[in-house]
């Protein structure tokens, strides 16, 4: 301690002032895309080696798990990394789902005369679908921006109430939409009356959406989501978000624009939730107002809390667990919420930081090893006094 404090080495000025010369980095401009390419490859293998979701219950579950992970991991950017508390994530999903559904539903009608799935694997229908999911993400991101703004003034409980309100508003607004236009003839002779309010199915929900979602799309998008989330977390951008969670005053004093970090977190999270909404709508063929509701949002909040606030792998594990569990306990459906509540209570008592805290699975192993290597030499005699 003593020695440390007093010595400011002679190279200090050099460090502070010199514009450092070129720093060597490995790889070229494309290296960064490798993990995503690998993820897409895995998605391809899954898609062609497993039976289609329409024919296999297990494939269906696998598909749902993928979508749920996208939702939980994206929520974790807001709740875990940035330390805000959003319980309206399902609202963003619904916004994305409805946007994507209306594009493929009415788009297919206009382009191909019916809402039947068009083209084969990577055919024109698939691209319309992919575009609709991206559009869903973008519209959700805009909603995320709007919902993120209150987070600049509100904290904790108050922000939670605003996000809860957002989800509920989306739900109610969707209930007030008009009935779907069923076929191309009706669509061609449509009048203003049928377009206001927009024909999105009202309280019955939006049904008859072409089922384009498959394992390839779900796991490709999941791969992108995981890579993006991890890269955010381990970058300057993610550090800024985490600093907001840790201490807003210190973060600002270190030059972090906390307003921008909060809104960015909301926008990024909402984008992925919107894309997941598109996947969801085209997997079951229906999306309904209740999908925007509080109950759905709550599921994702539980996953982020159980997994560990900020841990991508922890939240992924929690998402898998909490999606598979109800399937295994199908006969006890009515007890689901009780089990969730119990899980939460136990977690808060036993491990309040969540399964993995802020760490990733692989970091846990590293830590243990390092601890074992350096134990004992951790505290130098000089600092015992301070």
């Amino acid at each position, binding site marked *: 301690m003593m020695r440390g404090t007093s010595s400011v080495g002679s190279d200090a000025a050099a460090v502070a002032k010199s514009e450092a010369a070129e720093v060597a980095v490995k790889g070229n401009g494309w290296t960064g895309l490798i993990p995503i390419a690998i993820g897409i490859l895995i998605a391809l293998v899954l898609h062609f080696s497993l039976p289609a979701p329409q024919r296999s219950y297990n494939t269906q579950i696998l598909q749902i798990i993928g979508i749920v992970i996208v939702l939980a991991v994206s929520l974790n950017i807001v709740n875990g990394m940035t330390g805000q508390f959003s319980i309206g994530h399902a609202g963003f999903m619904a916004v994305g789902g409805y946007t994507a559904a209306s594009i493929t539903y009415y788009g297919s009608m206009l382009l191909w005369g019916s809402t039947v799935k068009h083209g084969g694997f990577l055919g024109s229908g698939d691209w319309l679908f992919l575009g609709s999911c991206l559009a869903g993400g973008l519209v959700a991101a805009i909603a995320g921006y709007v919902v993120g703004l209150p987070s600049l003034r509100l904290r904790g409980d108050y922000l939670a109430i605003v996000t809860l309100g957002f989800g509920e508003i989306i739900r109610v607004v969707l209930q007030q939409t008009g009935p779907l236009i069923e076929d191309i003839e009706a669509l061609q002779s449509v009048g203003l009356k049928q377009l206001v309010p927009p024909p999105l199915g009202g309280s019955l929900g939006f049904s008859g959406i072409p089922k384009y979602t498959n394992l390839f799309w779900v796991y490709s998008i999941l791969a992108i989501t995981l890579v993006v989330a991890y890269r955010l977390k381990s970058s300057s951008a993610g550090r800024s978000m985490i*600093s907001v969670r840790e201490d807003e005053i210190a973060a600002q004093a270190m030059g972090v624009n906390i307003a921008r970090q909060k809104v960015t977190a909301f926008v990024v999270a909402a984008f992925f939730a919107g894309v997941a909404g598109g996947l969801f709508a085209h997997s079951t063929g229906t999306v309904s107002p209740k999908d925007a509701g509080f109950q759905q949002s709550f599921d994702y909040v539980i996953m982020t809390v159980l997994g560990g606030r900020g841990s991508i792998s922890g939240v992924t594990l929690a998402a898998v667990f909490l999606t598979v569990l109800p399937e295994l306990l199908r006969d006890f459906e009515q007890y689901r919420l009780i089990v969730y509540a119990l899980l939460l209570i136990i977690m808060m008592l036993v491990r309040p930081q969540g399964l993995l805290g802020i760490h990733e699975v692989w970091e846990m192993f590293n830590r243990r090893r390092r601890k074992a290597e350096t134990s004992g030499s951790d505290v130098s005699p000089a600092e015992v*006094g301070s």
Partner: protein
Amino acid sequence: MKSSTEGLAAKSGLIAGGAASGPEALLDVREIGISFGGLKAVQKFSLRLPRAGLYGLIGPNGAGKTTVFNLLTGVYQPDSGEIQLGSQRLGQGKPHEITAAGIARTFQNIRLFPSLSVLDNVRLAGQLHNRHGLLSTVIRSRGYRREEELLRQRSLELLQIFELQDRADELASNLSYGHQRKLEIIRALATNPKVLLLDEPAAGLNPQEKFALAESIRQIRDRFQVAVLLIEHDMPLVMKICERITVLEYGITISEGTPANVQNDPRVIAAYLGAGLEDA
């Protein structure tokens, strides 16, 4: 929001490049004040801190010293007065804009990011002039990777200067108290400031550690060519290293001058009831 940050940054860049130095003060504070409800916490506070100067700010508990820092760093907006850094007006800037313009601080109550590593605490502060946005972050463009690597190297070098590089991967909350105080200073330096505000950096240290700290504050000023404003209750330390000292009491500046002058000022002696000043 974005454009104003960039504006500030651009301006500060101009100052750094131009020949703004000279006899005038780097940090020029003119009669700033703030009150909380009826309490006039700071009144008509003025300060002219030259480039690479080492000045002190002292006063009894509750005198308004930390409040001055909060005014200088944009945590509070002054009710009156002006703050100028180089040729740049700072009065109404947000804290992060003021940090970007070149004023960094430490906190009286340590405010590290406890669940970030020591290295990440430094990196967070060092990244404030980074240019790469979200898109280059997620595709890991070459430019982004170069910038991150440069940041990592610089942060490690900074830790090395203060002999904390061995603790780089540890959580900040696992450091000893003395090391945490030190990391606060390193973190502030990582923002590459022109002015460094230290709020009671010696609080809680033992006499030897205080002596070492005094040395290292002087060295920081010399090596990094940064102007330092130091709040400290330890009179001998302040008298020893500061070139000029401002004394606050109940938010009012009761004395200003060289250590010798301040020390013999009857108003200062009265404020401190004579205690602790004789032996300085």
